[in-house]
């Protein structure tokens, strides 16, 4: 086992290095210098004043989306519509949050709960189509992203739905009312950084998800369904129940991520308002987090932080004269770099186990 750990570390080191070198080459080719760009990235993500607090704030919704994705894929379902579930969940939270309007801190909980509910409903549509009609969830979840965008954009045109009253929207259109100060998630101040409480929420939920997947009967049954649906059915794991539940949980996490962006994201995310394009790619990045984490919750925590750092750091990259969207390419390289070692190990293991089974041992 020790030899294998060594192989893993070597493989990951090599492939991440290759990704970084390729990124450096790309920066050079596009007319910049790699060192200042790297410095800008580090400054913008963790080193600059207040930056690591912000990075943690961005990581929180990414991690939440990733956690939900892990639950869905544990059951063998491929949910790739988190971006839409996140947006729709936020819209539901805004709609009910402003109507119920309880006392401040309590209303934050209402907003979060309705966010999760909305995300679950949006994923649930795809889920029911899958479990009761056999429609592939890969397609439906993806297509529902576009639908969610249209539905929310429509809602933001109607004052009866999401649009803020004329008085509080100024000269903007298609914008919801801004959350009152006491309707926002609190912020912790540590060493001059503001750490959103959403980060703690995300980490606590990560621990819960890890526990649920690894230590509960429900988690084992989901795993069974994902890896061998026939034996799952034989021992009583109904795909209609467990598969749907897994998608609902996945959607709920995405919706919760949206509600967290709304109530605790601050100026990183539309400043406590719902606007068209509110989801800002967090759903997609959260999907990538789960992809590279490969169903491992701890790895998802790390991946969310790295991707959040890239996103936050990209703001500083512009000042070096290099297009800041270069970080998206770097992110792409990193995703590949993190996916290649498991694929290599899988192929090697398969070759070895074939050889071993050929030997009858």
């Amino acid at each position, binding site marked *: 086992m020790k030899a294998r750990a060594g192989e893993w570390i070597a493989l990951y080191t090599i492939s991440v290095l290759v990704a970084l070198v390729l990124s450096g080459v790309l920066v050079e080719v596009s007319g910049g210098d790699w060192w200042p760009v790297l410095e800008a990235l580090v400054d913008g993500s963790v080193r600059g004043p207040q930056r690591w607090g912000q990075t943690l704030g961005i990581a929180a919704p990414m991690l939440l989306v990733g956690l939900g994705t892990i639950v869905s894929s544990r059951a063998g379902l491929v949910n790739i519509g988190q971006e839409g579930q996140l947006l729709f969940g936020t819209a539901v939270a805004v709609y009910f949050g402003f109507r119920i309007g309880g006392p401040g801190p309590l209303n934050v909980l209402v907003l979060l709960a309705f966010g999760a509910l909305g995300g679950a409903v949006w994923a649930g549509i795809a889920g029911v189509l899958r479990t009761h009609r056999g429609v592939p969830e890969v397609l439906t979840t993806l297509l529902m992203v576009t639908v969610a965008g249209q539905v929310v954009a429509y809602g933001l045109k109607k004052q009866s739905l999401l649009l803020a009253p004329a008085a509080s929207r100024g000269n903007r259109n298609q914008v919801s009312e801004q959350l009152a100060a006491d309707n926002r998630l609190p912020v912790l101040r540590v060493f001059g950084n503001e750490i959103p409480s959403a980060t703690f929420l995300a980490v606590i939920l990560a621990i819960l998800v890890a526990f649920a997947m690894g230590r509960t009967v429900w988690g*084992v049954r989901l795993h069974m369904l994902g890896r061998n649906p026939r034996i799952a*059915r034989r*021992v*009583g794991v*109904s795909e209609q129940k467990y598969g749907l539940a897994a998608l609902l949980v996945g959607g709920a996490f995405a919706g919760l991520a949206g509600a967290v962006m709304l109530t605790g994201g601050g100026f990183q995310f539309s400043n406590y308002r719902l606007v068209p394009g509110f989801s800002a790619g967090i759903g997609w990045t959260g999907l990538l987090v789960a992809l590279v984490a490969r169903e491992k919750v701890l790895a998802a925590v790390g991946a969310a932080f790295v991707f959040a750092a890239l996103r936050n750091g990209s703001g500083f990259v512009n000042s070096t004269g290099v297009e800041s969207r270069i970080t998206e390419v770097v992110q792409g390289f990193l995703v590949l770099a993190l996916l290649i070692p498991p694929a290599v190990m899988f192929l090697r293991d398969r070759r070895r186990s074939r050889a071993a089974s050929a030997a009858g041992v």
Partner: protein
Amino acid sequence: MSSDSPGLVGADVVSVPAVELRGIAKRFGSVVACDRVDLSLHRGRIHGILGENGAGKSTLMNILIGLVLPDGGSVCIDGKPQLIHDPITAARLGIGMVHQHFSLVDALTVWENVALGESGRLDPSEVRNRIGEIGDHFGIVVEPDVRVGDLSAGLRQRVEIVKCLRHDPNIVIFDEPTSVLTPDESAQLFQSLREVVTAEGRAVVLISHKLDEVLAATDDITVMRQGRVVERLNTKLASAPALARAMVGREVSLRAERAALGVLSVGDTHDHVAHSTGELPALELRHVSASTGRSSVALDDVSLSVFPGEILGLAGVEGNGQRPLADLLSSLVPATSGEVVVAGEVVVAGRPGAMTRAGVAVIPEDRHDSGIVLDMTVAENLALVDLAQVSRNGIVDIRQLERRALDLIDEFGVQCEGPHAPMWSLSGGNQQRVVLARELSLDPAVLVAARPTRGLDVGAIDYLNDRLRAAAAGGVAVLLISSELEEILDLADRIAVIYRGHVVGDFPRSDVDVQQLGLLMGGATP
């Protein structure tokens, strides 16, 4: 036992050997799979390689076809030294192999599978014609336009053989080709093999652990044990007991061993106690019809009963409805008509978990299909069916899980690195023990065993059969579904036959006439 003598060369063979292996050695970790093995194959002759699972037969052949690289030794093809480092080289040298484990794509049709891996332009009608030709020539007929997923194991085996023969190889290796064929099909296969070998001068290797077929079908025999060649001789000079002794390394006495090796004639007397009538059947099917997408033959108006304490053997050629029957009793498909009654209670077939809850345990025909989860640990696999035993309030008690796994590993002699070893790291025989351990530990009312000994070695078969008998003696109603008559005759108290989805005949073991059984399996009316 003269391992230093040169490979046997019959008087009628003077040519250069088609294949000459010298001093082949291969280790996997601490396991020596091949220990300085010499082997010569000649054109126009069928060479049997006998040995138990793990004797090194398959490794040796995998070296010959380039799947495994040897640690030492040399390979000569037609007198020329060759380095076979991959299967493509082997194919170029005219070496083809029919593998024991299927490498077919379920979603594709037969002809598509046969053409798979070819390069160049694809001509479907040419491939179809070729399949027809091979079918006529060798007597292994398959329908080219059927989806492979709809075929029974026996028919899939045929597709594998056709796939290999399409390349017209000079040297053909058959790795346990009859493990899924009926006696008739096997005889037919060997007869056509014989014709082809003598007429076309191919060199054929037949890997097997069944003595009777090796004795009947080969010209030369090499016996391997623990990676070494322990005997090589001309088939004419061989006798079954001597070969069995060489193979196992001791005198073979157990009935199950003899049946497994084929030394036992199926007409042997039997001493099972006839089952007492008058009590309630543990499992009863009343006019049940059911179908599964995986088999083209559906169950059609089947009625049968299995009583506590008896083994009912359901004989039949593969693909005659065994699959839907096993799926039905695994809650995987619903009954389209009729009812299934377990211990007096009607069970809704097809509702997830219904059969398991009613007390029906299943050893599936293909353990990878519905028997185990390869990506889970041994401990998890042992607990899959009844997680309540290792959990409290929905939370898995890891120590309880481990303790239960250790007990079962110990009791059923599962060889693994421990309870947390991944299931895929176990050999087939040990995976089967895990399935057996789990299903028997549930204390079931009914045990359905579908081809439970498929691919197991002699020791494991012996053990499994003992376990099935013990389960029956302990009051479990055992339904044994098998296409191997030896297995049925050796174990069953009562015997029924399944043909084209119907169950015909129901005889006490003592009344069975093998001839009659064979006819029923072939579709004669009783």
